[in-house]
Structure formats: C-alpha cells, structure tokens
C-alpha cells in the first residue's frame, strides 16, 4: 500500500470521524435545546408558582395582620432585650399609650414598680432555658395613672435554635382581679363577723364526720379542732335525748330543708349545754350535697330562764287552781249558812208574827237575798272569765220577763220614789227564743242600777222592734233613767271589772262593781253589744240590740210560767243530809208540799234504809261524813239495783261537780241554797204523781163573777189571798199543836170566803172540819189535807 493510499484512507477516516463528531454535536445540540426548552418551561412554571405563592403569603400576611389588629386581646412583640417591636391597636387602646410612645420602649417601663424585678427574672429565665411559653399576672400603670392587671402569655420564637423575639398575648383581667379582691375582702369581713358573733360553726359531711370546726365551736364544746375533725359530732357530743332530736333533723336536712332546733350537748369537761342549731345542706358546683353546715348558739342561760319560767307558770297555774278551789269551797261554806238563813227566814215569815217581827224577817230575807246575789255575781263572773258559762236557748214570753223584772224592783223603786215604765212594741211576737235567765239577769241589773241612781223620777225599760226578717226580730232594749248620769271620763272604764263610775259611788250606792261588766259580757254572749249614752246630771240610757227568733210553736214554754205544785200526794222522799238545819228546812218544805219525808244523816244510813224500805225520790247531799253522796249513789245503783230518781244537793260550784254526780248515777241536781221554786221544779220533773191530783183546779170563781165587774173580782181575790195567807199560818200552827178547837175556829172563820173562791171539794173539807164528828186522827189528816189545798189555792190565784 502506498503512502497516498494510506493518507487517503486516513483522511477518509478523519472525514468520517468529523461527520460522526458533527452528528454527535448535533444530537448533543438538540438534546441541549430540548433540555433548555424544558428548563425554560419549568422556570416559567416555577415563576408563576412563586408569584402565586408570594401573593398568597402576602394575603395571609394581611389576614393575619388584620386578625391581630382587630383582636380584642392585647398582642405585641418584644425583642430579646425587652423592647417593643410590634403592638396591636388593642394595646394602645387599653394602656392609653400611643404606638409611638410604646414602640422602641422597654416593657419594664410600664410595669408597676414592685413587679418589675420578678417579671424580668421570669423572661430572662425563659430566654436562658428556651422555655416555649410562660404565663404570669402582673399590674401595669396605664397612661391615665390607673393600675391594670394583665394575664400575660409570652411565647419565645426561635430562629435555628436561637431566641429571636417574644410574641405576647395579654388579657386585661383587672375586673376579675378586683372581683377576687372584693370577694377576699368580703370573706374576711364575714369571717370577722361570724367570729365575733360567738356562733359556733361546724361543717359535717354526709357520713356524719366533722370536716371543719370553727374556733367558736371549739370554745363552745371545749374540744380543739383536731380533736373534732373526722369524728361524729353526734357520738361525741350527744346523749340519748339529743340523739332523738338529731335523728329527726337529719331526715329533714336530707330532703334539703334547713331547720332550726334546740338540742342538749355534753362538753368535753362533762358539763351540759343547750345549743340552738340552724342547719343547712351545702353543695359543690355540680349541685351534689357535700354535707351540712350547722351554726350553734349557746342558749344554756336562756334555757335555764325558760325552765324557771315554766316552773313559775306551773306554780302560778297551781296557785290559780288552788284559788279557784278555795273560791268554790268558800262559796260552799257561805252558801250552807245562807241556805239556812234564807230557809229559816222563809219559814219564819210563814209563822205567826207581829208587824215588827214581820219587818225584821223581811229585812233578813232581803239582806240574805242580796248577799246571795252578790255571791252569785262573783261566781258568774269567774264562770264568764273562764268561758264556762253556757247559754240555754229556750222559748220564753218577753212580756212575762219584763213584768217579772219590774216586779222584782218595785219595792226598791217605791223607796226611791221612782216610777218604772214598761214599753213593749206590739209588733214583737209573744214568744221568742233566747236565754231568759241571762237576759233577765241583764235587765234586772240595768234596771236595778237605773232605780238605784234615780231619786223621784221615772225609769223606762223599753223593747222596740228595729227590723224583722223571716222570723228573725232585731230588738233594741233600752233602760233609761233620770238619775245622776255619767260623765265622759267616767264612761271610759264603766264596763271594766271592779270599777264604778267613781270612788264615791260605792260609798253612797254600794255594789260590787261587777254588775255592768257581767251584763256587758252576758249581752255579748247573747249576740249584742251593751252601750251607754249619758248626760251628767240628766240621766243615762243603757241599750243593746239582739237578733231573736220568734217561737212559732206554743210547745214548751219558759219556766217563768211554772206553777208551783203544792201537793205531791204523799210521795215518799228520802232526804239524805247531815246538816240538821238544812234537814229541818228541807223537811219542812217537803211536808208542806204533802210529801212523806224520811231522813238519813249520811249515805250509809240511806243505803241501810233502802235495803228494807222504798222511796219515790231521794234528795242526796254530796258531802257527808261516813259515806258521801256519790258513793251511796253508786251502791244504790249497782248493789241495790234501784232506779229511784236521785237528786243531788250540791253545796258548791266547783267545776265538774255536777258532772260527777251524773256519772255516779244521779238524775239531777239542785244547787244549795235553793229557792223553794227550784226544789219544786225538780220534784215535779221526777215524781210521777196522779194527774188528777196534781192538776186539780181548786179555784172556782163562778160565784164571784155574778156579783160584780172585773175590778171587784180582782179586789175580792186579792183580799182572799191576803186573809187566807194569814189564816193559813195560824191553821198550820194549830195543826202542829194538835189544837182541834183552834182548827175548827179557823175553819169556821174562812168558810164564807172559801165558798166564793174555791171549788166545792175544798169548801166541803172546811165544812166537814168545822162540824167534825169522826176520829181525831182522821180529823188531823183532813186538816192537813185542807192546809195543802188552801196553800195550793193561794198559789193558783197568784
């Protein structure tokens, strides 16, 4: 191969190599271009992305800034040296400092002097320890000089582990702080008050264990707080009596009720003390009961006074009872001789007396009656005062009541030269319902006063119908006098107990001073009000208004129409009485009424008598020696099995005595001293006598009627009664003396008048006696029978 050939080949290789290189280069260029295009596109995307991100960040920044700026919290930044680098508007608003005044200033400049050191130390430590966040509270001084409390949370921002700045969030907690201080102040105040009030306070949990004992409670019980806490107060302090009280209270408190109660406790030293406890449940914030709180006050002193007072009250009550018993016994003691005086005076009056003696006896009777009224006043008064007085509402005739009242006071009126006028409204029905006894008592009292205080004048008792409505009548009662009158001053205490118009009244007019108070109370019980109008020197008017029902039925009428039954047709009466005077009186009266009387001087004798003999009625004294009336009655009822009516003769007015009598088996009672009419009523009620006998009319005026007018008849009847009463006294005396000739004499004397006034039966007895031819025994029996008849005639005519 020649050189040329070699060179050609070498050149050819070089050309090929160059083409190869060019081709590589082109490929590389293309690759480079494409890479470049890719890069460009990437770059563009990146730029757009960056742009977008940048805008987003800017937006976020605006948002965050606006958030921070519009926040209601204080937000600021300080650098690591403590200088403000950013503050939000709230910071300036709350502190009062402008942004200019704050930025670049050290935060310590605004903190209250005494907190600077502590706060600086905190943040220096945070810087040193790289603590992420610290929270603290401190006061700053605002621009206006006021102190503000901040609750501040400072977050340390790090840049690659190196402290960069603090981002701080603060709340203005001044109000909370003030409130806390106020609460603390208030707590302190109440604590002080409670401690000074000497109230022992105790907190107990639901298991009855002491949670806390306040000093005053410790002082009260003598235990220290450590001795008390964890213990059961009831086990430690209470005995049996206290535990019972507590048990009840605990149940109440579990129902959420607070209560106040008193309880006896035992102190550490064993002494007892009474405490008053006010207990109430207390709760946690969820409303669950944690326990109870009790406030204890030592009331031992009060308790001892209470106990003394109770003793005093008991003593006073005992004294009062003793006094009442004394009063009752006294009234019994007074009534027994009174009974004798009145009874004997009554009997004496019926015996033959000369005119002087008649006036003496009359004086004895009226005085003893006055005394009895006085005693009854006193008893009534105490009955009213104790509310024991009850009314007996029955039908009664108002006219009769007025007439009787007038008649009762006529003698006194005559004495004083007083005319008593009665005025009864014709519209008022004849019979009304009320308690005639009490109404009568009031009228007697008022009329009595009117008569007493009037001299030479008129006294008017009037009843007017004010209105009527369906059987109910409103009646006004007036008792008007022309007496001394009552001044306005005197009227003030006119109705008070034991007072009279003035002190001199009692001296001049007498009286107990109980009359008007009793009347006022009785009128009140009857449903009215007793009032008075008066002019000093001219007279007074006592008046009251009552609403009374008209009694339509003519059935049972009041007892004022009662006619004394003078003949019990030899009824067998057993009189059981130990007092001989009383026995004599009762026996005399009973025999007068044609009773056959047996006397036993005590219960035992009565029982003995009844074992062999019988009786139609027993009058039984309650208090007797050997055996009393109650015991005797029980024996008669239970052992002798007798149902004979037994009437108690009660001598006193002890409450419940009458009830005891009824319980023992008695049927009724008569209060001693009794008026004859009272005894008569009881006998009529319990002795069944022959209808013909009892209701026998012994009066026959037909002979008289033919001889003249009514006035003549009235005069004749009055004359008969006057004469016959006198003759009857002599007749009875002769009967007692068994003086037959004297009896014949009297029979002869009265025969003509008897013929004109009495029935033929009576007249025949007189005539038969005058011309007696039979046995002496029968003569005296007939005489006795005539005596009863005449007595009966007089009663019937009256």
């Amino acid at each position, binding site marked *: 191969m020649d050189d040329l050939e*070699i060179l050609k080949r070498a050149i050819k290789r070089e050309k090929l190599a160059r083409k190869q290189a060019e081709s590589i280069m082109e490929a590389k260029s293309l690759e480079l271009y494409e890479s470049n295009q890719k890069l460009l596109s990437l770059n563009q995307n990146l730029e757009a992305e960056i742009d977008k991100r940048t805008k987003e960040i800017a937006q976020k920044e605006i948002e965050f800034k606006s958030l921070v700026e519009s926040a209601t919290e204080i937000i600021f930044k300080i650098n690591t040296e403590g200088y403000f680098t950013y503050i939000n508007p709230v910071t300036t608003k709350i502190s009062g400092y402008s942004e200019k005044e704050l930025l670049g200033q050290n935060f310590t400049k605004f903190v209250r002097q005494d907190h600077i050191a502590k706060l600086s130390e905190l943040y220096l430590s945070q810087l040193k320890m790289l603590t992420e966040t610290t929270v603290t509270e401190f006061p700053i001084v605002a621009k206006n000089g006021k102190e503000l409390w901040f609750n501040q949370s400072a977050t340390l921002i790090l840049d690659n582990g190196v402290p960069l700045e603090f981002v701080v969030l603060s709340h203005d907690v001044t109000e909370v702080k003030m409130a806390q201080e106020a609460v603390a102040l208030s707590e302190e105040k109440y604590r002080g008050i409670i401690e000074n009030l000497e109230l022992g306070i105790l907190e107990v949990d639901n298991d009855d264990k002491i949670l806390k004992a306040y000093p005053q409670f410790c002082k009260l019980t003598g235990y220290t707080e450590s001795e008390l806490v964890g213990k059961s107060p009831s086990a430690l302090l209470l005995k049996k009596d206290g535990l019972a009280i507590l048990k009840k209270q605990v149940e109440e408190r579990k129902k959420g009720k607070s209560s106040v109660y008193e309880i006896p406790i035992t102190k550490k030293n064993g002494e007892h003390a009474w405490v008053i406890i006010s207990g109430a449940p207390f709760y946690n914030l969820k409303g669950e009961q944690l326990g109870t709180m009790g406030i204890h006050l030592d009331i031992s002193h009060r308790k001892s006074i209470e106990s003394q007072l109770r003793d005093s009250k008991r003593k006073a009550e005992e004294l009062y009872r003793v006094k009442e018993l004394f009063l009752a016994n006294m009234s019994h003691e007074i009534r027994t001789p009174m009974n004798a005086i009145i009874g004997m005076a009554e009997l004496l009056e019926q015996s033959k007396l000369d005119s002087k003696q008649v006036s003496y006896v009359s004086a004895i009777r009226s005085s003893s009656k006055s005394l009895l009224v006085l005693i009854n006043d006193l008893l009534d008064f105490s009955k009213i005062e104790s509310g024991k007085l009850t009314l007996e509402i029955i039908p009664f005739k108002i006219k009769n009541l007025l007439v009787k009242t007038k008649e009762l006071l006529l003698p006194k009126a005559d004495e004083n030269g007083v005319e008593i006028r009665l005025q009864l409204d014709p519209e008022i029905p004849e019979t009304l319902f009320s308690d005639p006894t009490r109404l009568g008592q009031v009228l007697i009292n008022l009329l009595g006063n009117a008569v007493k205080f009037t001299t030479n004048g008129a006294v008017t008792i009037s009843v007017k119908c004010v209105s009527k409505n369906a059987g109910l009548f409103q009646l006004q009662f007036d008792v008007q006098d022309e007496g001394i009158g009552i001044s306005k001053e005197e009227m003030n205490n006119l109705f008070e107990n034991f007072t009279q118009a003035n002190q001199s009244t009692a001296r001049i007019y007498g009286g107990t001073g109980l009359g008007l108070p009793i009347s006022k109370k009785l009128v009140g019980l009857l449903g009215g009000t007793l009032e008075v109008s008066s002019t000093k020197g001219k007279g007074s008017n006592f008046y009251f208004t009552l609403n009374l029902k008209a009694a339509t039925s003519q059935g049972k009428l009041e007892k004022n129409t009662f006619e004394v039954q003078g003949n019990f047709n030899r009824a067998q009466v057993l009189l059981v009485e130990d007092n001989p005077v009383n026995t004599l009186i009762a026996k005399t009266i009973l025999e007068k009424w044609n009773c056959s009387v047996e006397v036993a001087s005590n219960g035992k004798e009565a029982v003995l008598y009844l074992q062999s003999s019988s009786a139609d009625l027993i009058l039984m004294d309650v208090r007797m020696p050997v055996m009393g009336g109650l015991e005797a009655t029980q024996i008669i009822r239970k052992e002798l099995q007798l149902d004979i009516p037994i009437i108690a003769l009660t001598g006193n007015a002890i409450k419940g005595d009458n009830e005891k009598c009824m319980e023992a088996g008695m049927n009724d009672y008569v209060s001693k001293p009794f008026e004859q009419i009272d005894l008569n009523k009881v006998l009529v009620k319990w002795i069944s006598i022959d209808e013909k006998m009892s209701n026998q009319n012994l009066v026959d005026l037909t002979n008289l009627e033919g001889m003249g007018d009514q006035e003549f008849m009235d005069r004749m009847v009055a004359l008969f009664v006057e004469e016959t009463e006198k003759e009857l006294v002599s007749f009875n005396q002769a009967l007692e003396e068994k003086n037959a000739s004297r009896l014949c004499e009297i029979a002869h004397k009265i025969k003509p008048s008897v013929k004109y006034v009495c029935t033929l039966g009576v007249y025949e007895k007189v005539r038969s006696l005058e011309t007696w031819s039979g046995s002496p025994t029968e003569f005296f029996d007939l005489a006795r029978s005539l005596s009863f008849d005449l007595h009966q005639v007089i009663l019937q005519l009256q």
Partner: protein
Amino acid sequence: MKGIVFTEFLELVEDKFGIAMVEQIIDECDLKSQGVYTSVGTYSHKEMFAMVGKLSELKDIPVNQLLELFGEYFFTTLSTGYPQFMDQPNMFTFLKTIDSYIHPEVLKLYPEAELPSFQAEMKGDDEMSLKYRSTRKMADFAVGLIRGAAAFYGEKARVKKQEEFDEGQTVVINIKREA
C-alpha cells in the same frame, strides 16, 4: 471509553511509528468502529486493548510498557486541553483531587462515562499509596498518567504497582517523591 483516548493513541502511534503503522493496526484489528474515532464519541475499551495488543505484537513491546508510555503522553494532552484542572501546588495534591474534583467535572460533560476511582493515602510527606479501582484493568495506563503528572509538576517520583487484586481490577500504586 472516551474517543479522546483513541484519537490520542492513534496520534501517538502515528507520531512514534508513522501513519503506516496506524493503517496496519486498524487493518489487522477487526474493529467495529473501522478506526474512525472522534474525541467527543464513546467506544468500546476492547478496541483499545485490541490496538495496544496489535502494536505490542508488531513492535514486540510489552503491553504494560506501551500503556505506561501512552499514559505519560496522554497526561500532556490533558494538561494542555484542560489546564483548569491542573491548578494545584504539587503532584500529591493533584492526585487527591481526581476523585473529588476532576471526575465529577468529567461526569457533567459525559454522564455515561465509566470512570476509575483513585483512593489516595499519604505515607509520610513524600509517599502516597493510591488505590486504583476499575473493571477496565488499566492500572498501567494510570501509572503512566501519574508519571506524566510528576513531570508536569516538575517532580521526580518513583511510581510502581505494589499490589494487585481481582486480576488487576484493584491495584495499589506506590508513589515516592524523590528530591
């Protein structure tokens, strides 16, 4: 293997043995590239070994000797073409920068290049132990390059292969600087 190694090798053969020798080697080695090489191209290293082997056969010079000579020559080409890599105070410092600086720069231009690694370890002030690693097994070429470097930095150095591992894939080269 980078085209520059082939172009420089043929340059050196032409320079030392004449263009006819170049023709003969290319003719006698059944080369896939037909001996057409450009410095920016990449070719199989087997072609290099084929051509070095042919030259050794034709001129009866051991392959390792040829590779050492070629290495020494190639360094001057590199130092002329890439003076920016040579800016080092001495040879040892330069050698230390091959792995850390020069090869990363080469990879920027030729990302597909398969480069040997040189792990340098100083044995005192004037001795270096350089561990060569490459599947190409061209430690001799490396020895030539090191000698070229020593010449470039005007230093006298004794460079010799000290130990071989994995059939020449790892070779420890000892470099002793002499005064």
